[in-house]
């Protein structure tokens, strides 16, 4: 008796889907962006908006899929999948009345691109009308909510042009006299002679002197920049005196 009843129920169960409407099943496969779909939170859900009624909502099931068991609305549908940490592609699902029964069939399913026309769509997932469609949802991106604050980095500090200028100046101030001391006297004399004659030397001295009332005070930078090759008259005697006293 029990067996008979079970059989009856089973027959009834088989009969039911043929009069029911189209079924849409959306699977979330693992991908490089989402390696483990089992980590998706329980709030993950999909909505199917028909344009003629409130959207239908389906929650994520064990096995990482959504199921819209009974799509009775006809026309173009928009399928969206929402989860906390990932962005999914939207899909267009077309549903038409079934030609041979009272139910509905899915006649088309495409990935679509927001902000473009409804007819601009991706590859068709449905080639022939079907009452049961299995779709694999595509993850577009992982949501990144946060901005990392630019922490203190000595390297970026060094890259700043102001600091670079300062370092070069420091090298000149500290390094040049040391270098001069280490040179043998002849070369030094030669070098100083050269410095005396070249207007550039004045500039170098100006940088070394740091404007503390040294001989650089007398260097005529404006004149040098103006292109005059000769130094002014006051320049020479003072240089001469300095040379003598040393």
């Amino acid at each position: 008796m029990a067996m008979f009843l079970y059989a009856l129920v089973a027959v009834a169960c088989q009969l039911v889907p043929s009069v029911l409407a189209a079924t849409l099943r959306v699977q979330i496969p693992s991908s490089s962006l989402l390696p483990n779909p089992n980590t998706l939170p329980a709030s993950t859900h999909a909505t199917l908006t028909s344009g003629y009624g409130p959207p239908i909502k389906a929650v994520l099931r064990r096995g990482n899929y959504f199921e819209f068991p009974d799509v009775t609305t006809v026309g173009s549908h928009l399928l969206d999948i929402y989860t906390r940490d990932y962005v999914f592609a939207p899909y267009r699902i077309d549903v038409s009345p079934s030609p041979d029964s009272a139910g509905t069939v899915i006649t088309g399913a495409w990935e679509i691109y927001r902000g473009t026309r409804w007819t601009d769509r991706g590859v068709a997932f449905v080639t022939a009308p079907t009452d049961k469609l299995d779709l694999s949802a595509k993850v577009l991106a992982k949501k990144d909510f946060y901005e990392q604050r630019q922490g203190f980095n000595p390297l970026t500090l060094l890259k700043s042009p102001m600091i670079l200028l300062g370092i070069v100046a420091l090298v000149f101030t500290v390094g040049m006299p040391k270098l001069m001391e280490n040179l043998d006297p002849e070369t030094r004399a030669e070098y100083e002679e050269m410095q005396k004659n070249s207007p550039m030397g004045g500039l170098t001295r100006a940088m070394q002197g740091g404007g503390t009332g040294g001989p650089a005070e007398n260097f005529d930078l404006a004149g040098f920049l103006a292109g005059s090759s000769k130094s002014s008259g006051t320049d020479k005697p003072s240089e001469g005196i300095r040379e003598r006293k040393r």
Partner: protein
Amino acid sequence: MRWYGVLSILASLLLPTRAIFADDAFHIDYHHALLGSPQAHATFFHKPQTSTNASLLYTISDKAVLGAVNPKDGSLLWRQPLAGRPVNNASSSFLVAGERDGQIISGYGRTVACWDALNGRLVWDYTVPEGTTIHGLQAIPVGGSNTNDLPQDILVLATPDHSNAHAILSRIAGDGSGTRWEHKDSSLSPSSSASIAASSQHVYYITKSHGLLASSKAKVVTLDGTTGHEAGQTSVAVDSDPLGDGGEYSTASCSGFPFLISADKGSKSVKFSLLTNPNPKVVGLTLDDKGEDIEDITVHHACDVTAPTHFLLHIRGKTCQWAEIYHVDVKSGGATRAYLLPATEEKSAFAATGSGSSVYFTRSTESEVILYSSESHGQLGRWQKTSFRATPGISPSHTVAEVVSKGKASFAVRLAETSQSGNWSLVRNGELLWTRPEMLAYVNIAAWAEDAGPDALAEELDLESSVNPLTGYIHRVKRHLTDLVSLPSYLQGVPETIVKSSPESDAIARRNLVGTKTVILGSRRHELIALDATNAGVFQWQTDLSSHISPGAEMKSIVVDEGRAHVYLSDGALIVINASNGKVIEHQSGHGPLSNLVRIPGGPAPAAIKVEADGTPRPAEDSAAVHPLEGNTVVTISDDGKAFGWAIGQSVEKTWVLEPRDGTKIINAVARAEHDPVASIGKVLGDRSVLYKYLSPNVALLIAESHSDLTIYLIDAVTGAVLHTSTHQAIVPGTDIPAVMSENWYAYSFTSRDPATEGIATQLVIAELYESSIPNDRGPLGSRTNFSEFSVDAGVRPHVISQAFTIPEPISSLAVSQTAQGITTRQVLATLPNSNAIVGIPREILDARRPVDRDPTASEREEGLMRYFANLELDPKHFLTHAREVVGVRKIMASPSLLESTSVIFAFGHDVFGTQIAPSLAFDVLGKGFNKGQLALTVVALFAGVLALRPLARKKTVEGRWGQ
């Protein structure tokens, strides 16, 4: 075509990012992830995994939200709104847990759903036939022998909603493969009550008709549990008042000895009949009445097939409460009283816990927790409740317990208690572990309360400026001298504050700068709650107003003025409350119902205007001393979709009526916020010319809807003149149409279906109003010094520029950020109900002047305009809620802070969320990026450099001098 999407993402990347810094997230914002008030019959501890002994706390709240909470810290592990979203006045819901199969089965509406107990995924669902509603859900006891891992089968009772439908009792396979058998009852009328009970062999279907001709007998149909065949039918005498779980006659179905229990109102005896007896006989149990009138009786029993057949009757008398424990003799079908628990004046809550072969009863009162064995009246354990707040309303209204036996005489008890104030808390051995403020899920109105306490310094400064200069000067010198007293201690504290920069001190410093903002919330449970909106949503006070609110009335509006909160009720009554501590100051009874309340400027204070049920505005009685300023306008919408304009001054006058086309109804009106400062009257373009903004305090937006079309009217509220109209076709029904208006722009959103291509998309429209289309031109108003809306040439229409964007998901509510001066750029705040998030869209992106189909010119680029793309991606970096999932937000409120850069945001509806945003970045405050140590090191390094170079420089000078 798909490149458009990429391009628009690129464009948004070029903007200065306004994302939440990773180190600010979870610090400047707070969130209460709520469920709603747990229901007594659908709350329990359950072990989700067979392998571990750790249990979780499961509940279905009365907002039909199923959730799992970690009993260790009260954090929410997962939740599922059974109705799609949290609903008020949810119909009855049921929750059963499978034994050892890791599943939780819920029943709500027409759906039985089986959830993975650990992660909240749907395992299977089953829908009962149309026209019926689930009215009972039972797990069929497997009886000790079934040790294979098959999930337990579920018994579902669906009762008819109307007379054409049948009641159906069905057994559903626990693995989701469908029904095993069905039992139809076409005789049950929708007004009758039906309930189910199950034992390991049989299923009992109990019906009782109500009404005049109702008999005092319930019909019990016994069905074979495995086949569903009828095994017998009998009538059992019952009393009028069912005492079982959820107000049903049958109870203890999960325990293996289901019985019927009922009593007459106020009666001192209870009718009991054991269902497992082939011929259930009725036993009258006489209660010990302690000389009191018995007001209420509840039954508590353990849910364990192997547990002893004991149950507890919790009896509430007028002044005290006690309990009687009964032992059931399964063979004879009788029940005998085993012992009595003493009566106490404190309110108690009882819980029964089955653990192996014993049943424990836990009694929880306001001050202590006592554990009893079901066998005898000896106390197994007694704990004083500690660390409880001494506030009224902490007495538990219902509780569930988990008892762990540690050795012979040592027990540990965990209690999950729902208090009358709406807190859900866990008490472990008398110690409060956590509290979840579930009453916040019922908040439906809110108001900002300004700083309650007057600043002492400000008062003294006021005093100094009010007296004559000499006295003021002396006062000031005195004040400075007294300030000097605290100087040494301040100086002592300075190094400490520099060295010890803990996150907490940073938070305090920030709070001092931002200022304190309190938000006062009114809930559907007739409570007022105050939260500190700038300090992590900390509770300030809670007041129960239910004694002041007549039945049927609800809170309509809260107005906070000078430290007093005025609560206007729907019946016209007014309750005045001290905004700093929640004490009721006065209560005025009603003068006729009101549907809304608006505030308009007046002297000496803003005047409250009541909008009565018929839509007529009237000054509120309590503000009789306040005179509304002349020339205020109020727009009301009638139920049949017309808009009315009213001029309110000394008198109230109807000035205009706007009647939309046939079939179209105005459903919503939006105006600029009360505080909506405008920093600049024009928009400076790239070539230094100015587009003047159309700024009128009197513009309003009317949203009208016909069955599928949406029309937006921009009106002048003084004259009722329509300034601009836009119409959108084929709106998807059942979707939200939020709108917001500020400064010289408005925005709205809708979901529509393109009639030609059937394409479905949600759009966000932004419209900006300018005085003229030509820069440096103020239109006809330019040379005028004054202007009347009623003058002949007043028909000046603004130049409206609008752009629509496709957005990836629908918006349920819109708001705009607020700052003190309006210098900071505004952010459009949108609730995304699908992503459970709140997004702040910068106005630079949502700009109506973005160049279409061409790249921006150099001057446009200087203005910050980007090329228009139809698609507007909602960048996750703009999500104010970042990784938090904020469910059921109905309203977002923004308030200026003391800092111009910062706006304080508070959102409520179901979850409560608050944060602080800086739309133009934090330009007037040092953020966490400022490094004190770095600054100090730089100064020290500079100083060291100077010291090091000094001998060098001196040597050089000396040498130079000698050289001369």
